């Protein structure tokens, strides 16, 4: 029963095949067996999980269960959870126990979800391999010498490795979609503003967005339907009704206009990955879609613009970690400046310090126009490319990543190589658009992800397209070691 998803478990709980306590215990047993090696969880919460599961079983017995009642999930350790440590993968927050739940956590809790624990991640979500975590790297369940991707690598490895059926995640430049691609999962990054950021530890506030890592598009539709919606506590939350995503699955794809950006099929894309992606695109043609080549002229510059904008926002966001109100404080500070500098120098890891410095530099006097304003202008050009493309096509498709999962340690010494990991995903965040990665093939026993990008608030369309593909193919059903 451990290769099941949310929908499967929901059905089994309704039919009485097993109870929430039983399925929760089964996953806790899996975690106890395999987390030592995968390192997908930073914190496991067995007592709370079993108590929540028992409560969910009671709710069901009383006839008040919803679709999510009693379904166990995991939260990326970037979401604040009242009473349970929220580390954000950092020594800085190793002792931080939030006094409140993030809106995403609260909504899932209210829907009856059971929390198994908090998943590993790149420190402050800065990384593409889950190797910058203070709690050590996560291993890819498909091959434990490889990375799971990042920054939501713990969530991806936990779902893929069958330690939980689904997990929350966040995506600032590709941190849901790239791990989904590397671990053979469905990962959706909704439109900026669709899901509340309240209680989600900030990295780059104009780019951060919460989403899901699941086995199927149907599971993503169920889970996103609960997470999405207006939240007055997030000033950039968008006040639009949330469609019933599940009700919009199973719509035929006849007449769907797919754009494929030539820049995403250019030099750098591994030929064996391209073959799989082209085959997946052909599958969509068989489902009645038409394919047209498009151009995203400025996409080549998205990594450059992102590595100004994201670090600039991060340097401001992370200035709150000062050793005064919460988080790490160095031993025996001699004065205030010494306390700030050593608390931050010791509390942050190398990649976080690097990005804070890039951001500080880009925002400093004399460089602000050349870097920060320039990057914002490039950001507009990148967004305009998408606006133009969407006058001709309904969705944009291509590879999520130029390659499959790479070996642990392969890129840790070369930040630029790591940054280029997100070459196909970053522009989507800069433009604020929704994107989903779905399993679309295999290369040498490793999953390949197809990225589908839509117009603002087109999550329902993306989920339906992904679902229809999954009705016609079986890539999403493959599991590691099976």
């Amino acid at each position, binding site marked *: 029963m451990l290769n099941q998803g949310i929908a499967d478990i929901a059905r089994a709980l309704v039919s009485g095949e097993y109870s929430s306590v039983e399925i929760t215990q089964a996953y806790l047993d899996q975690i106890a067996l395999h987390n030592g090696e995968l390192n997908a969880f930073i914190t496991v919460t067995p007592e709370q999980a079993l108590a929540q599961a028992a409560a969910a079983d009671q709710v069901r017995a009383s006839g008040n269960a919803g679709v999510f009642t009693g379904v166990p999930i995991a939260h990326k350790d970037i979401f604040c959870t009242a009473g349970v440590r929220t580390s954000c993968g950092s020594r800085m927050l190793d002792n931080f126990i939030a006094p409140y739940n993030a809106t995403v956590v609260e909504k899932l809790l209210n829907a009856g979800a059971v929390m198994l624990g908090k998943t590993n991640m790149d420190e402050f979500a800065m990384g593409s391999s889950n190797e910058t975590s203070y709690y050590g790297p996560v291993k890819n369940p498909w091959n434990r010498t490889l990375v799971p991707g990042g920054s939501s690598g713990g969530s991806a490895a936990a779902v893929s490795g069958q330690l939980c059926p689904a997990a929350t995640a966040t995506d600032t430049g590709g941190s849901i979609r790239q791990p989904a691609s590397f671990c053979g999962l469905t990962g959706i990054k909704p439109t900026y503003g669709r899901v509340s950021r309240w209680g989600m530890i900030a990295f780059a506030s104009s780019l951060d967005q919460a989403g899901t890592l699941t086995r199927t598009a149907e599971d993503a539709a169920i889970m996103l339907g609960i997470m999405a919606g207006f939240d*007055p506590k997030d000033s950039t939350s968008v006040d639009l009704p949330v469609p019933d995503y599940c009700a919009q699955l199973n719509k035929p794809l006849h007449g769907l206009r797919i754009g494929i950006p030539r820049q995403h099929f250019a030099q750098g894309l591994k030929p064996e990955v391209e073959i799989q992606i082209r085959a997946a695109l052909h599958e969509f043609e068989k489902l009645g879609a038409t394919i047209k080549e498009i151009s995203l002229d400025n996409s080549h510059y998205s990594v450059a613009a992102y590595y100004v904008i994201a670090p600039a926002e991060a340097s401001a966001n992370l200035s709150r970690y000062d050793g*005064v109100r919460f988080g790490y404080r160095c031993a025996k500070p001699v004065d205030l400046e010494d306390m700030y500098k050593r608390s931050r120098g010791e509390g942050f890891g*190398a990649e976080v310090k690097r990005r804070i410095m890039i951001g500080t530099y880009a925002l400093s006097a004399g460089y602000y126009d050349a870097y920060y304003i320039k990057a914002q202008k490039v950001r507009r050009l990148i967004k305009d490319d998408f606006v133009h493309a969407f006058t001709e096509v309904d969705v944009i498709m291509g590879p999520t990543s130029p390659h499959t999962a790479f070996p642990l340690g392969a890129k840790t010494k070369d930040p630029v190589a790591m940054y280029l990991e997100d070459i196909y995903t970053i522009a989507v965040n800069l433009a604020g658009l929704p994107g989903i990665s779905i399993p679309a093939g295999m290369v040498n026993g490793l999953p390949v992800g197809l990225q589908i990008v839509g117009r603002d608030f087109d999550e329902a369309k993306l989920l339906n397209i992904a679902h229809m593909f999954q009705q016609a193919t079986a890539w999403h059903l493959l599991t590691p070691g099976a």
Partner: protein
Amino acid sequence: MAITLEDVENIAHLARLQLSPTEKQEALSSITNILQVIDQMQSINTTGVEPLAHAYEAAQRLRDDVVTEKDQRITLLALAPSTQRGLFLVPKVLE
């Protein structure tokens, strides 16, 4: 734009980050490489392009000026590394 070790030290000071000599050297080398990537932007003509700070150029939403937070003084102080009589404690600021 090339940066020097002095630039790294200045940035680290502005960001209030203590770096070891090894970390400074590493920062110099990696930031130099990253700036080379970033500098690719300079080749794009952006004359007349308005900067885009945010994917949605909506105005900041306002709410009524009423208290929404409850008093969490004790809870929040409990998170601090050092407190005294209901206050956050920091090293001496004034001699």
